[in-house]
């Protein structure tokens, strides 16, 4: 994750032009795909029953457990939970299933398809792979899936239900059928004149839409007492979580609902807005989405909005849908750890309607930064905000 943050901080884009072939037709799409090989981390037999998102989740969980020290010390069987956000589960397996089913003549179907396409597959496979017998739950709420997974895990720990949770998200929906659906929505970015890597342009006048990505990010959340008991060094602290619904429109965002999530998160953290120094924005690079979020931030923070640094790291890693919030929360953790704010890459011509300090092009040092928000908003009008705090020196 350290290396990922360094690349995001440097504005290094993962967006590329990928050739897609379906129904005999070839076309180029702008995507942020992962060059993924689980290697020895997933044995052959269980791997046969894991969709791509599950494999990514198992590997991400491995790294989280290893980095936290829990892999060596072992996770207590009933003491840990698994809270994962995932939008579409094994959508590539569903596509393969339908291709076989609808072929003429129909081809044999796999018995494993049904359990492989579940959105809960990633959480289940983390549980089975690492022997974690606490609750393994999945939140499937489009683009806020993993923000809610992390937020609900935070609540479960705060209210004493669990001491340790593997929380995050997994998404791998860059298969042709799913991509075709996205294309019809007219929300995807077109290639920028300076190249594919410059095509994700949140807050920029020349934005044309979002770039889809994929991946999995898993965090280890622990109660303060559990972390102290095993001498773990916290990376950051989650101090607030707010969640709301617009009750408005299936695809159009609403500033009232978004501001509500931010306000609830600040209240949950018992924090005045003035204490926040940075917002990792949801901003995907759609005109309406970016403007509504900017308005919601201004409505939430009032005049303090002028002092906030607001950046969208989607400018380099694209939109990971169900895994987006987990990646952005992890990047926000790293922001607080390092005191370095990642920029909004490609922001050469800021949209005057997004009248905020969107950290254009170049990252900046912010050693005094103590509190940050991570925003996530979804189709269906679901909004979730996490408040994170820099870990205090022990």
């Amino acid at each position, binding site marked *: 994750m350290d290396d990922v943050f360094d690349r995001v901080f440097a504005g290094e884009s993962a967006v590329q032009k990928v050739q897609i072939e379906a129904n005999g037709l070839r076309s180029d799409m702008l995507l942020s795909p992962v060059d993924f090989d689980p290697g020895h981390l997933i*044995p*052959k*037999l269980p791997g*046969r*029953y894991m969709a791509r998102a599950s494999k990514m989740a198992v590997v991400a969980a491995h790294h989280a457990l290893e980095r936290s020290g829990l892999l060596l010390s072992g996770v207590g069987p009933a003491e840990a939970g698994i809270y994962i956000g995932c939008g579409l589960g094994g959508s590539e397996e569903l596509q393969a299933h339908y291709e076989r089913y609808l072929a003429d003549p129909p081809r*044999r179907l*796999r*018995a*494993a398809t049904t*359990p492989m396409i579940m959105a809960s597959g990633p959480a289940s496979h983390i549980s089975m792979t690492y022997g974690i017998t606490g609750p393994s739950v999945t939140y499937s709420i489009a683009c806020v899936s993993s923000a809610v997974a992390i937020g609900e895990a935070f609540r479960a720990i705060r209210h004493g239900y669990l001491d340790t949770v593997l929380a995050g998200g997994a998404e791998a929906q860059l298969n042709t059928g799913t991509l075709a659906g996205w294309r019809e929505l007219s929300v995807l970015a077109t290639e920028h004149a300076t190249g594919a890597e410059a095509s994700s342009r949140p807050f920029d006048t020349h934005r044309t839409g979002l770039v889809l990505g994929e991946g999995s990010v898993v965090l280890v959340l622990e109660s303060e007492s559990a972390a102290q008991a095993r001498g773990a060094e916290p990376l950051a602290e989650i101090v607030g979580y707010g969640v709301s619904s617009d009750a408005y429109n299936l695809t159009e965002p609403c500033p009232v609902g978004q501001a509500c999530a931010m306000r609830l998160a600040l209240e949950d953290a018992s924090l005045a807005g003035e204490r926040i120094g940075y917002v990792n924005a949801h901003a995907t690079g759609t005109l309406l989405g970016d403007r509504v979020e900017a308005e919601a931030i201004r409505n939430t923070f009032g005049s303090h909005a002028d002092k906030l640094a607001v950046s969208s790291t989607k400018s380099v890693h694209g939109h990971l849908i169900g895994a987006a919030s987990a990646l952005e929360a992890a990047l926000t953790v790293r922001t607080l750890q390092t005191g370095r704010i990642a920029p909004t890459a490609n922001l050469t011509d800021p949209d005057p309607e997004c009248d905020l300090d969107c950290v254009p092009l170049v990252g900046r040092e912010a050693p005094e930064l103590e509190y940050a928000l991570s925003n996530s908003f979804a189709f269906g009008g679901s909004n979730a905000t996490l408040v994170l705090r820099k870990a205090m020196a022990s």
Partner: protein
Amino acid sequence: MTPYAFLADVLSEKYDVDPDAISPEATLTELGLDSLTIVELLFDVEDEFGIEVPEERASLETLAEAVALVEELLKAKGD
């Protein structure tokens, strides 16, 4: 390829079964196959030999039983 050779090959290659554990008397459960994997294995067999295993014959215990079933279905098919 004989049904036994095919099964032994698939079990070690696709299903990660230790080749030394594979014998006609070995039960599929002993070889580490769960119910889902047994169904998937039968699909592999059906594809390879162009046969269809009737649902009521699909509960098999040992590799020898699986081989006998495949041979019976192949005979019935006229191969």
